[in-house]
């Protein structure tokens, strides 16, 4: 699918973005080949292990994306670096983060069913990831609230920082909670502590592929954000212009409101 000729201003030049896109494509193709065909099935988990080659990269990306959101939110709030660029990056990255977190949970579930026998377990990492998912889903809901750009940016940046501060607390409390009750045998998350050879390779290709994809999608989503901001501004100006015209056209309404 060819991309539109003109686009909103982005984080990188279109050429650089396309390079990332192509590299991501190759890396993803390599991931499919190595992950699904070249890497051997695991001794204990069997073929289900192959889901780890996308589950782990997805989880890594989720953390990266939310980290980016937190850092850019802080940069927006800091007066010396305040710029809508950071606000857009925060929003775009959060959206990607939610998607990757959702995939992490889904893939974890699909892995858990054959390996643990259950779709879900109240294991510390799963629960923390679930809370993370909802934290940033809320952030996305906040972003959708119509408001002046600077109002929305400040509000969302503060919300992102609060969520970011909360994550270690959630992680710590949940981990502590579950280790007190942990039945180590069945739900041992480190079922495969040592990963060798092609399996490790598959994981690394996965992380690389997803990271490249993230960078590509981030720039693309950023440009969309710029375009939508422009569009909202134009719609607002058009609405105001309409209002002004409409007020002048009908004498009875002159002096009333507007």
């Amino acid at each position, binding site marked *: 699918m060819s991309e539109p000729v003109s686009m909103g201003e982005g984080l990188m030049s279109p050429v650089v973005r396309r390079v990332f896109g192509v590299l991501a494509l190759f890396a993803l193709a390599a991931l499919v080949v190595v992950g699904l065909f070249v890497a051997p099935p695991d001794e204990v988990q069997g073929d289900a292990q192959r889901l780890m080659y996308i589950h782990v990269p997805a989880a890594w990306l989720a953390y990266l994306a939310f980290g980016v959101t937190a850092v850019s939110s802080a940069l927006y709030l800091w007066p010396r670096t305040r710029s809508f660029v950071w606000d857009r990056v925060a929003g775009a990255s959060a959206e990607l983060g939610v998607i990757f977190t959702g995939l992490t949970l889904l893939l974890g579930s699909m892995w858990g069913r054959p390996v643990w026998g259950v779709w879900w377990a109240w294991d510390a990492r799963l629960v923390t990831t679930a809370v993370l998912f909802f934290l940033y889903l809320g952030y996305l809901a906040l972003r959708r609230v119509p408001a002046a750009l600077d109002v929305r940016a400040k509000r969302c940046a503060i*919300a992102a920082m609060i969520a970011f501060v*909360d994550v270690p607390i959630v992680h710590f*409390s949940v981990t502590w909670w579950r280790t007190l009750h942990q039945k180590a045998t069945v739900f041992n998350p480190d079922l495969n502590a040592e990963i060798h050879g092609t399996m490790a390779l598959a994981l690394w290709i996965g992380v690389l592929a997803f990271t490249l994809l993230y960078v590509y999608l981030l720039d693309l989503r950023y440009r969309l954000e710029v375009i939508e901001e422009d569009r909202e501004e134009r719609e607002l100006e058009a609405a105001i212009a309409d209002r002004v015209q409409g007020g002048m056209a009908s004498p009875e309404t002159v002096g009333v409101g507007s």
Partner: protein
Amino acid sequence: MSVFQEAALVAGKDLRIEARARVISQQILPFGLIVLLLFAFALDPDRGVLQRVAPGLFWITVLLASLLGVSRAFSVEAENGARDGLRLSGLDGSSIFLGKAVALAVELLVFEALLTVGVVVLFDVRLASLPALVLGTIAATVGLAAAGTLYGVLAAGIRARETLVPVLLLPIVAPVLLGATRAWEASIDGVPGDAWPWVALLGIFAVLFVGIGMLAFGPLLEES
């Protein structure tokens, strides 16, 4: 005026409004008791189950009630440009935050005290070791009130406030639910000593969110 004096002013105002309107006693407390009843309908009232999960049910009810409390805390500012009045009052943002958070905490503590009677009666809970339970409850409530006040002001000017605040606040206060429930469980049925680490966690959460609130409330109020 010092921060604390200004905060006391604001807290006094909020509590006086509550004393007159009596929303806690007439609406939120009945809500809490009804929720406890509904839990009994939903779960097997075979005494064993309810008794075991009573701390969790208690704190979930408190969490839900706190959503109402937060909504109420900011709806009193919504009418007659009261929020503008607050902005123009010259009071420091952190003082207003402290005042509102303290008022909300007091209201929640009163609610919790009365709800505890409900829990003891309906679910046949025996409160054993009190110090950890009381301290934990206070720490949890302060944390809840601080986080709630923070998100309340964040969403203050938004029309979808009532549905937005729960989505934002509940994941944030998940550790409070966790810690408070564990502290209660340890104090009621388990080793009371086990409760103290959780009380410490609740304390840290409270301090953290009071701090964040004092920093962020002013800027958020300006924009609301």
